[in-house]
């Protein structure tokens, strides 16, 4: 517990320091996007890494969060802070409706089921033009503010998102160490054995699915108010796959893995611009190499390398 506190303390200081040190608005915005992606990856990691339930439709919840707040604030002039609970509620509602039948599926079949759901929602965003603006997107989403503090400046938004990430980390870590966290890992391992010890596996899977959907909707909310323009392509099937990749690359069943995975997948395209035409080739190659060298994700890989270096140092 104390060790955790020290780590959170360091994390807090790092966030604060980066916020102070980075002057360039472009970089601040990029870092904010990493934060938003971290929230997304964290949500999916709780579902996939801990409970072992794959979802290939998480971009849908991300999109529901973004579009709900966009529609409410622009069409109905509702304060963004009032639209946040609405967005979360809608995501939770949809997650319950979708989760009840699909969570009966396991493995690949669950992947297929959620994939279908993601595609349906994506088509809704694109075709329901009167409400969503259709394929050309949705413009004019207002920035966030609390009283006199506006989150329009990149630095303020950076702090808002990253402190939300910090709080989510603390919350998720506590959840994992609790009775519920143990139950989730038990379900991941063997659903039958989990039932035998008296875990209501159906409810437990639904609860974590809903929680994960809510976190995704929260990221969608932050995303919409940051870029002020959203289009259906930001919530397509490819985005769902990208979230899964963040979790797998970063490390399944690891909170910090979500941060690593989101950082790598957000930064890589930026670093690879110099390859111009070959950008995607190099991108794919790097992901392949990461998976070959650290099949259990970056977090586990880095820990392994650290432990190996320590044992070799101790040898006479």
């Amino acid at each position: 517990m104390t060790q955790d506190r020290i780590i959170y303390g360091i994390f807090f200081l790092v966030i604060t320091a980066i916020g102070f040190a980075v002057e360039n608005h472009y970089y601040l915005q990029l870092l904010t996007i990493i934060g938003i992606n971290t929230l997304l990856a964290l949500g999916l990691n709780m579902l996939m890494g801990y409970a072992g339930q794959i979802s290939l439709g998480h971009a849908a919840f991300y999109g529901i969060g973004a579009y709900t707040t966009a529609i409410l604030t622009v069409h109905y002039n509702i304060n963004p802070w009032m639209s946040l609970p609405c967005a979360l509620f809608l995501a939770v509602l949809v997650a319950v409706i979708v989760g009840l039948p699909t969570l009966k599926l396991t493995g690949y079949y669950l992947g297929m089921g959620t994939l279908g759901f993601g595609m349906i929602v994506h088509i809704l965003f694109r075709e329901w033009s009167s409400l969503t603006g259709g394929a050309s997107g949705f413009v004019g989403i207002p920035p966030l503010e609390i009283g006199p503090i506006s989150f329009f400046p990149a630095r303020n938004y950076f702090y808002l998102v990253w402190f939300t990430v910090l709080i989510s980390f603390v919350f998720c870590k506590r959840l994992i160490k609790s009775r519920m966290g143990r139950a989730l890992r038990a379900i991941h391992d063997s659903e039958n054995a989990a039932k035998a010890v008296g875990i209501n596996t159906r409810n437990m899977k639904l609860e974590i699915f809903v929680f994960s959907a809510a976190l995704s909707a929260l990221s969608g909310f932050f995303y919409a108010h940051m870029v002020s323009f959203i289009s259906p392509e930001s919530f397509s099937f490819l985005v769902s796959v990208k979230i899964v990749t963040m979790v797998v690359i970063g490390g399944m069943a690891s909170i910090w893995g979500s941060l690593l995975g989101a950082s790598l997948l957000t930064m890589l395209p930026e670093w690879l611009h110099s390859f111009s035409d070959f950008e995607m080739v190099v991108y794919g190659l790097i992901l392949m190499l990461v998976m070959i060298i650290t099949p259990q994700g970056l977090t586990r890989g880095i820990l392994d390398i650290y432990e190996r270096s320590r044992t070799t140092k101790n040898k006479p």
Partner: protein
Amino acid sequence: MAIKGVSLSVAEGELVSLIGANGSGKSTLLQAVCGLLPGWEGELAFKNDSLKGLHPPAIVQKGISLVPEGRLIFPPLSVLDNLKLGAYTRYRKKQHIEIAQDLEMVMTLFPVLKERTRQAAGTLSGGEQQMLAIGRALMAKPSLLLLDEPSMGLAPLLVDKILKTLVQLRENGITILLVEQNAQAALKIADRGYVLETGRVVLQGNSEDLLADDEVKRAYLGKDYGDFYDGRG
């Protein structure tokens, strides 16, 4: 269905063994009791309450715990987490003090587990995993403990140890239904026994009688016809 027309009872404080060969329906029966097998027909009662249509969590809360076939511990989780998962339904009721006491009880019953609380359960040996599975079941504070072939794949010395533990648990007031292929060992510690064959009870009675029964000896105790017909011409 793997079983048909089976009727058996376990009185409070009793240790009953259910023996039978592969495919005789022993595990099916236990799964039905635990609610892991929906859709059976018939009647199942525990302390005068019907168990029909109940889901596993409700059955665990009624005080029935299963030590599943093949142990089914959670290998990547630590030994301590495995044990705590056994008390899952009790954490909901905030019985933290009682749970801590029971944890202590399980650790004294199986001192090996105490040395390895932080270790991943998958790294334990087969015997230790079986002890963990029993310990996990005990953490639910059951009044009826069901065991599905706890001796499977274990060395004779360990089987002995595990069965002795069961006798000790019975003395502590836990009712036990033991399903075994290892008929001799199971009947030796039991009060009564049932013999299941292709889904039906073919024999039942006191364990001494069953141990002495020719039919049981032939089929399950590894004595062949030669021994019986000796001297009978």
